[in-house]
């Protein structure tokens, strides 16, 4: 049964080969292969989740080489919900892409490859293996961002490639330092070995700095976020939704796993400067990200900067370093993925149907597309943190954790960021619902649409229902938030 864990990576990799191999013969095979992959992936991740709920932690030795010498894959209460999230996001995005495109076989290959990479990041328990999966994720993302036909998309992708590669290389260098000092790459083994080397050994400190900096680049924390707005804004809407939901999430998960599973709280206690720096960086990111979001006129850029701010919250929770805050961080990882993915898809629907992308163009849209507008509003208010939606559950736990740890500054910053979040979403919703449309019959739609060149001019039922499902999902997740916490908590307890 634990084979499901390795199949989560293997199935998408195999699926990514088929559209390219058979693409010459069957023109639109890609979507069907990817959809089949998504369904199998969901079955596998559900199996893994069921096993985790029963037994707490499952482990798989790749190739039969027992850890710590071989590569180990592990699923526990933190990674299992995220693996299910990967499956559901993949299926949602595929349902959307059925009509909206891009339709090329290469796109579906890249999407499957990205699914494999992200599943790998969530499943692996080996620091070098994590590097490989991060790079698979990175490579697939660069290719997906470049799916947009414009040279701007290629430029945004190349910028992302440079910054992402430097980040991953720093991570690799950090792994090198860890390997010199401990001689092992297995995460559980490293935790013991680092303790015996001593937390304040210069090599351990250097490795921590390199690994955390490398991963923060991938998370896109301010000021390492420069690649992110371009990448989100220039890629096709389908791609923006998928990568905003999962790619930074994978890096943030890796950060949680490494800081608490490898360096452990012993390291954080021995070097208290680390948590202070993380909290300070995160606080700046929360406020600056939100402030930059308020200033944007392009809605996709606004959502991108909003991610900078939201991931600041998650990094702040890591810096707070207590159980409550980390529960909040993991819930917010799941919640942010659903909310931000849904919001990007909603913007995609508006772009396809009405050709709007700027905040000002949204005037009066609620009258023309009531259902999707309502879904957008629900997702936006969830992001602000209004109960009962999931955005509230995550933020609430982070704030309570901050207060428990005596970090009042974080609590204040979160409240301020909530107001700023309300400011940037508020002005969109205000225009949608309370401003009369300026001029009707503005039919620039086809020219503005950023999908892969196939001029879709009408949003299909499938596209709309995915957005609505995401909105319903955030509310449902808010209500079952305590169940989710019950799954996450035992895995986090092991760290404290």
């Amino acid at each position, binding site marked *: 049964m634990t084979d499901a864990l390795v199949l989560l990576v293997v199935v998408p990799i195999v699926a990514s080969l088929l559209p390219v191999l058979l693409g010459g013969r069957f023109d639109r095979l890609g979507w069907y292969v990817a959809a089949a992959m998504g369904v199998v992936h969901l079955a596998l991740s559900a199996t893994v989740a069921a096993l985790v709920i029963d037994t707490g932690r499952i482990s798989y030795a790749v190739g039969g080489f027992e850890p710590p010498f071989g590569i180990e894959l592990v699923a526990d209460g933190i990674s299992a919900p995220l693996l299910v999230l990967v499956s559901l996001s993949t299926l949602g995005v595929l349902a959307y892409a059925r009509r909206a495109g891009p339709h090329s076989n290469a796109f579906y290959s890249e999407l499957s490859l990205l699914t494999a990479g992200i599943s790998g990041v969530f499943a692996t328990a080996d620091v070098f293996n994590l590097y490989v999966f991060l790079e698979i994720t990175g*490579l697939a993302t660069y290719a997906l961002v470049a799916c947009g036909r414009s040279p701007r998309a290629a430029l945004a992708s*190349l910028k992302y490639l440079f910054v992402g590669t430097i980040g991953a290389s720093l991570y690799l260098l950090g792994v090198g330092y860890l390997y010199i000092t401990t001689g092992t790459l297995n995460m559980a083994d490293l935790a013991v070995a680092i303790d015996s080397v001593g937390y304040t050994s210069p090599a351990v400190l250097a490795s921590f700095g390199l690994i955390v900096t490398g991963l923060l680049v991938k998370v896109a924390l301010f000021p390492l976020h420069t690649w992110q707005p371009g990448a989100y804004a220039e890629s096709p809407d389908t791609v923006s939704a998928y990568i905003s939901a999962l790619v930074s999430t994978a890096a943030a998960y890796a950060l949680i796993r490494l800081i608490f599973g490898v360096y452990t709280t012993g390291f954080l206690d021995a070097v208290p400067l680390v948590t202070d720096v993380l909290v300070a960086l995160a606080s700046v990111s929360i406020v600056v990200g939100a402030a930059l979001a308020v200033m944007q006129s392009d809605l996709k850029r606004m959502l991108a900067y909003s991610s900078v701010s939201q991931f600041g919250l998650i990094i702040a929770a890591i810096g707070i370093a207590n159980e409550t805050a980390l529960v909040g961080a993991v819930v917010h990882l799941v919640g942010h993925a659903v909310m931000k993915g849904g919001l990007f898809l909603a913007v995609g629907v508006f772009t396809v149907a009405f050709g709007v992308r700027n905040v000002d163009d949204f005037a009066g849209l609620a009258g023309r597309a009531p259902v999707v507008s309502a879904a957008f509003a629900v997702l936006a208010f969830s992001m602000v943190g209004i109960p009962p939606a999931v955005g509230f559950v995550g933020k609430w736990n982070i704030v309570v954790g901050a207060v428990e740890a005596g970090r009042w500054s974080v609590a204040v910053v979160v409240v301020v960021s909530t107001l700023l979040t309300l400011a940037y979403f508020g002005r969109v919703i205000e225009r949608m619902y309370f401003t009369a449309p300026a001029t009707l019959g503005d039919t620039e739609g086809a020219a503005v649409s950023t999908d892969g060149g196939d001029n879709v001019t009408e949003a299909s039922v499938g596209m709309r229902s995915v957005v609505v499902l995401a909105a319903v999902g955030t509310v449902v997740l808010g209500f079952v938030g305590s169940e989710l916490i019950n799954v996450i908590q035992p895995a986090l307890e092991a760290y404290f």
Partner: protein
Amino acid sequence: MIDLLTTHYNYVVSVLLFGIGLYVVMGSDNLVKKVIGMNIFQVGIFLFFVTIGYVDGGVPPVVGHGQTTFVSPLPHVLILTAIVVGVSLTAVALALIIRIYNGYGTLDESVIKEVQVDD
């Protein structure tokens, strides 16, 4: 100091490569040169890993030859993987550069910025 340099020159060179690579990525306006810089940066890491895997007088860990000093092959295997990743990244980067050149007619980043502002 001299002694340290003569025995540890590999490390010095790899740090130099990091610096040169990063400088080229950040300082150069030409996109192809940035790719080259990225490669130099990665080569620095490869050299670092190969160096830490080196054991003076060591042999491959094959039992039965009367040798006692063995070399762990792991760092080298890791770098083999990292080299493959590096090659793929270079390929993707160059493919993107071809598209950028077709779109803008230049590989100079500052010129591209001006073109974008004019749009």
